[in-house]
């Protein structure tokens, strides 16, 4: 898997961000971008058929552990952001009765 693949997925997510009319779709596209980024980062530490990064004896062909450690945090942050965004969109539906961006702009709070 090359980093090109993750860039393609990022571009798909960006395309979704700029074209989607619905809040839920925007949140999904945000998640797509984030997942692609996690893929990109994990690619950085990839060394082919590498060993797991636990030093018991000599492991010359070790996978870089740092990107993995960082990406766990990113996943947690992404999950909380997505959860909060979905919670707010429930509230928005209660107040406005719609989840379309353009209808939301027209209606006064």
């Amino acid at each position, binding site marked *: 898997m090359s980093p090109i693949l993750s860039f393609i997925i990022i571009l798909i997510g960006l395309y979704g961000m700029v074209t989607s009319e619905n809040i839920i779709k*925007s949140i999904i596209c945000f998640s797509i971008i984030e997942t692609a980024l996690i893929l990109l980062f994990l690619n950085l530490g990839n060394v082919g058929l590498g060993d797991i990064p636990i030093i018991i004896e000599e492991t010359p062909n070790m996978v870089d552990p740092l990107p993995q450690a960082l990406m766990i945090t990113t996943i947690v942050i992404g999950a909380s952001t997505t959860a909060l965004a979905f919670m707010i969109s429930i509230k*928005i539906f209660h107040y406005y009765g719609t989840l379309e961006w353009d209808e939301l702009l027209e209606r006064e709070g």
Partner: protein
Amino acid sequence: MFMDLIPVLIILIPVVTGVFIYITRHYKFNMLVFLAQSIVTGLALRYYFYLGRLKGEVFLNLGNWSEKISIVLKNDYLSMTFIFLTIIMWWMVIIYSWKERKKDSKFYFFLLFLEGVFFGLLQTNDLFNLFVFIEITTIISTILILYKMTGESVRAGLYYLLFNSAGIMFFLIGMAFIYYSEGTLSINELTGKINISQGLNLTNISYISIIAAIGVKSAFFPVYNWLPKAHSAAPSVISALLSGLLVKSGLYVFIRINSMYGLESFREFFIILGLITAISGGIFAISQKDIKQILAFSTVSQIGIIMIGLNQLDGNIIGGVFHIINHAFFKSMLFLSAGIIIKTYKERDTTVIRGVLYELPLVGIFILIGFFSISGMPFFNGFISKSIIKYGVYSEFIIYAIHFIDILTITYFMKILQVLNKPKGLNVRYKVKRCNNSKVPVVILGFLCIILGIFYQPIGRLLLRTEIKYIDLFDLKEWSIYSSKLITGYIIYKYVIKKDYSLIKKIRKTNISFSNTNYLFILFITIMLLWKL
């Protein structure tokens, strides 16, 4: 040993106190907010003197791993300045909201948690922790923006959250490039070692994507339209905090990232961008009627001036940093006063509210002080930082542009100032309701504006370690320039803006949808890529 651990303590004490307040959920424990604030203030002061003995740069390596991969907290005079600013702002916010929200444990939980996270953001020395802290700040400030849970605030909160989170993803992309080419994420390790050759290589693309992410966070030209929405929908306390400090977190990261890369080819680009930001923010502010919208767009305009100050061609950022501090003081004071006015009159439209100077004399006077500061009158703090910025700009054109921005500022502030007086034939009776917010923070911030405007030399020496010599408060030329600007602004207001032409109405009604905002964001990145080519 204890002294070394202070940076960790000032992150942890507010967070732990906040969690304790939230878990116990008894309103008497809310008093602990003051205790935590006092302890943090004491520790920060103590650490400042410790810093003075150690040549002004202290690293704290947590866990004693190698420099390249461990979590390191770094403190220097810049971060200490911001820490003191944070402490002052949080004191003001807590005192202001105390009477109203005495029994609201949830509010103080989020407020204190945000403070701790913000200290972390200021002190961290690696890019990934910076990302984590920025994200937590975004999430908590979203919750605080929609705290009132009205329709408008919920909408603004979602807009803020999604746009900022999508923007910050580009920070991660930039980070991936840096890690791929340099093998470390520590800012200190990277400083001066990054390969900055010309053309479109990995480092330049990483710089562009990181700056794009920060640009969303700190409201640069095409991508600032989350800011007025969020500022006007949030409670006034939170608007003061957002405008005074949280927007500046992006600018702080901007300073750090810029000094890490040391790229000089982007300085002119940022000066132009700052000018466009300032002028467009000013034009939008002129068209608004809502007092909080005017102040929010004015924040955008001032951020443009700060951008000019942070990218001066000789590499001196003192003017920008000074203006960040000054803007934090007067803009949060104005937001807090606006909060008091809105609570008292139950009205936000500047064309309707009248007679503030008679109903709320103290607030009226301090709004005047805020006006003098923001428009750059000598003896007030805005004059000092704007003079430093003008002194560092070599181009005549930009100096005239800054004068033009000042005139814009005066013009839109005339709209706010019209609430002060009371026309004679006015028969409308307001249902004036006494509001229970404290006026002490407004007074303190107002006096800080004047103190910074007069005693700028010792303060600059203590915090920013520079001598500010070339400003003359009694210079007749400055006074005449200021008064002519004042008169021009007033004339423009009286004969053009007050008529409310259809063009102004059209600008006021401009509303950019979410997908168009994303187009603008992509456009922003494209422009930067083209500049680098």
